[in-house]
């Protein structure tokens, strides 16, 4: 047993009842979950293969509530696991048995919409889509659109630096956040950025976005709003092989066309999504591209003509242009529900590797090989425009040992992505799932430089402590750091 886990055990056995007492002094009874059945509802997120029953769940309603909880955590040295809507596919919100789960889902108010500034200030528990919905009438929207945007919170988006289908044009969360309010591990409230561009000094926002709750708990965010395009419609292109589809994507971008989104689905995915969304996807093709352009009707059609010309070199067997907003909506509903829709077929492990676009066809065939060697079926759904792959490895969760096997298969795929010049996660984050795979992509020095940042914000390592960094490495790092600081002070 390592120091870290020993420490955890020690804390757990000694979790003082006074933690609960202190919590009930600062929160209302309905903000605290203590009973077994209630806690179970929080024991996992969208990575259901791992479950850990937390020690207590709290549902703060304000930044001050969060700060008060953090002070209690600090006082007793009890870890905190922040949680938004619990939609992480990487296990980013999976509790620790000795942790206070800080669930911000009740902090769901939009505080201020400032159209003149093209920004909105929201509480962290507001869902991604709720922001766009609130400004839709005025012709604005919030750009990052993870497929779970209906339910995922801005808190979670910031933690994971979420992307989405349309980030090919609009960037990911880090490009669309102007400011945050952060509660630190000690319970201090800090603000970074604001309703203006490029804050002074070091870019702390870039650290906080994507830190998976490891630097503090974000309670408010100022997000950038953008003007809605006149219109947006997708074009569907079906191909007989994955390779043709992949090459077509590279050709489009290489020729200087940058659609708002280029999405890829393979046959099993097409079928499952069609069942849910009735979008009229072609069921007889091996690969489908959804390519979206924005602008006036004429502009969109002009772009489609260019794309069709390029695509004709790759033998598309199905071509359909969405004519109306309703058609477009159904097409996107299908794509955005893809992960859930695959649930109709089987349980799955969702990968999130990124590869350079030029390696697309090569990597796709390799993925098929790897899954084949494990005798797993794989369904590919991904953001092709930026090379962000989401192979879903289908497996039977009720069969013993299958999860371990599927994890291994997934690790091989991610290693392949890194070898190809890519990375292990493009938008879902590291969480628990890929924590031990970080060394595929990073050297020890890389990770140590990242961990130093965490140490600065979270000296006692209590904020979502078991995520992102390989446990042993984190233990060694902390031991060395504390030794060297002891050395200095001595």
């Amino acid at each position, binding site marked *: 047993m390592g120091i870290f886990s020993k420490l955890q055990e020690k804390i757990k056995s000694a979790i003082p009842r006074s933690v609960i007492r202190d919590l009930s002094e600062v929160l209302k009874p*309905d903000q605290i*979950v203590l*009973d*077994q*059945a*209630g806690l*179970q*509802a*929080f*024991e*996992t*997120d*969208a990575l*259901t*293969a791992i479950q850990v029953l937390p020690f207590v769940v709290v*549902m703060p309603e304000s930044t001050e509530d969060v700060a008060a909880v953090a002070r209690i955590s600090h006082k007793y040295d009890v870890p905190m696991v922040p949680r938004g*809507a*619990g*939609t992480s596919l990487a296990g980013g919100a999976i509790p620790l048995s000795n942790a206070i789960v800080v*669930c911000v*889902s*009740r*902090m*769901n108010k939009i505080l201020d919409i400032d159209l003149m500034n093209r920004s909105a200030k929201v509480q962290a*528990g507001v*869902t991604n*889509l709720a922001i766009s919905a609130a400004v839709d009438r005025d012709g604005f929207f919030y750009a990052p659109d993870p497929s*779970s945007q*209906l*339910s*995922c919170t801005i808190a979670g988006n910031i933690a994971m630096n979420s992307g989405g289908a349309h980030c090919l044009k609009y960037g990911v969360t880090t490009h669309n956040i102007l400011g945050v309010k952060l509660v630190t591990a000690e319970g201090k409230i800090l603000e970074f950025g604001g309703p203006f561009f490029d804050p002074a000094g070091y870019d702390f926002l870039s650290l906080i976005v994507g830190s998976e709750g490891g630097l503090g708990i974000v309670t408010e965010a100022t997000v950038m709003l953008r003007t809605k395009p006149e219109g947006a419609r997708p074009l569907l292109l079906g191909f007989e092989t994955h390779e043709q589809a992949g090459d077509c994507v590279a050709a489009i971008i290489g020729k200087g066309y940058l659609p708002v989104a280029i999405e890829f689905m393979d046959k099993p995915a097409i079928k499952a*999504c069609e*069942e*849910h969304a009735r979008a009229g996807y072609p069921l007889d093709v091996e690969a489908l591209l959804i390519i979206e352009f924005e602008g006036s009707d004429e502009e969109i059609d002009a772009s489609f003509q260019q794309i069709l010309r390029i695509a004709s070199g790759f033998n598309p067997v199905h071509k359909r242009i969405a004519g109306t907003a309703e058609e477009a909506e159904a097409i996107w509903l299908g794509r955005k*529900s*893809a*992960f*859930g*829709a*695959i*649930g*109709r077929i089987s*349980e*799955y492990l969702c990968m999130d590797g990124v590869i350079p676009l030029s390696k697309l066809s090569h990597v796709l065939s390799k993925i098929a090989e790897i899954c084949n060697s494990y005798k797993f079926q794989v369904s590919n759904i991904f953001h092709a425009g930026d090379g962000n792959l989401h192979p879903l490895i289908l497996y039977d*969760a*009720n069969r013993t040992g299958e999860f371990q096997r599927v994890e291994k298969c997934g690790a091989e795929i991610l290693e392949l992505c890194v070898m190809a010049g890519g990375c292990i996660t493009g938008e879902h984050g590291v969480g628990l799932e890929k924590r031990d795979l970080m060394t595929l992509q990073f050297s020890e020095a890389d990770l140590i430089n990242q961990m130093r940042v965490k140490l600065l914000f979270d000296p006692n390592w209590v904020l979502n402590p078991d995520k992102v960094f390989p446990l042993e490495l984190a233990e060694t790092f902390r031991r060395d750091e504390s030794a060297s600081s002891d050395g200095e002070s001595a």
Partner: protein
Amino acid sequence: MKTEFTKRQLRNPDTQLANDILRRCVHCGLCTATCSSYVVLGDERDSPRGRIYMIKEMLETGAAPDQSLTTHMDRCLTCLSCMTTCPSGVDYMHLSDLARKEIETRGHRPFKQRFIRRLLSETLPYPKRLSLSLTLGTLARPFRSLIAKMGFKEIVAMLELLPKRAKRAAEFTGGGIARPRGPQLKRVLLMTGCAQKVIRPAINDASIRLMARQGIEVVISKNAGCCGAMDQHMGREKEAVDHAMRNFKAWQALEEEDPIDGIIMNASGCGTSVKDYDHLLSKQKGIAEEVKKFTDKVFDISEFLINYDLRTTEQWTDLKIAVHMPCSMMHGQRLTHQPFELLQNAGFTVMALDEPHICCGSAGTYNILQPEIATSLGTRKAEHIKRVKPDIVATGNLGCLTQMSHHSDTPVVHFVELLDWAYGGPCPEGVEHLQHRVDRLKTTENGN
């Protein structure tokens, strides 16, 4: 999602069904956002995903449902918004039915709760008892604060919801047949609901006139009664089955006289349940096929009428109608556009509300049993209504009608009442003040 049931557990058909449902769920969490209770409470345990997970744990361990599960199941409106959202096709409806049955049979409820639930179950479905209780209720209204002090907030909620003005008396009562004047095109059975008959009989009257005018023979069976939805939502499966069996027998009798083309529902809450009779009665031996034959021809009245070429409207009007789709229509029966189209064809200007997928808080007996949450939802809906400034709100279910009338200043009617009005019937109750904005067209053809 992974489940942990033993082979023995799975021999129980209910558990097997639950397992099949649970295996489809990938715990993605999309359902939380469109859940009517979660949007108000922001607590995972009050979301479909949280409930599904708690139900799973309860069924797997075989433990008796505890207080926590009971509380959070009770807060579920059964609006089924989650089922529309769910990309994996998780059958939350039947899973929640199972959970409620478990709670009812194996859980423990305090006496007060049991009393109220029993009271509702034995009053609402029976028109005569309901009539009587309304009279008593009106007498009790002045004593609301006293009752509240005694801790019966549910009864206070019930009293608050009572119709405040004298209702228009029913034109058609009891069983009977309305024959069209011209050639008879179809013969349908109209289920008249139980509470509806007492609280707003005009809905049935309008339905009868509207259909008869279109050449449809409308039959009302004396022997058909409550659909059983209320009992089912309270976990009282046996009572629900009894209601369903009685209706099934009434249909059989009618069908023997002269075949019927449709069983028409004008209370969509009931419609959702009746359409599901093949599931509810699946444990009854030897009737499965026949039940299915009937449930296949259960239609919401909007669903039925949309296939008719209703005659040209006889009115000219600038009235703006906001349509509130009851959850039972939108999610329970996946009807989305029918009332909009019918009203539009009848010459009204039709508008949608924001957050159409969120419940108004009525949800059967919910606004009585969970008054606080129901009020939040009712107020929320009223705000959406206010934003689009309609003259009238149209809906398709009595419960929503009562709930929204209570929370919104805009008059609320059933859409059949508006259709009936447009095609020659009387002006619906509660919107008489708008009558001057409707002109009858002088048409050459006059159907009546």
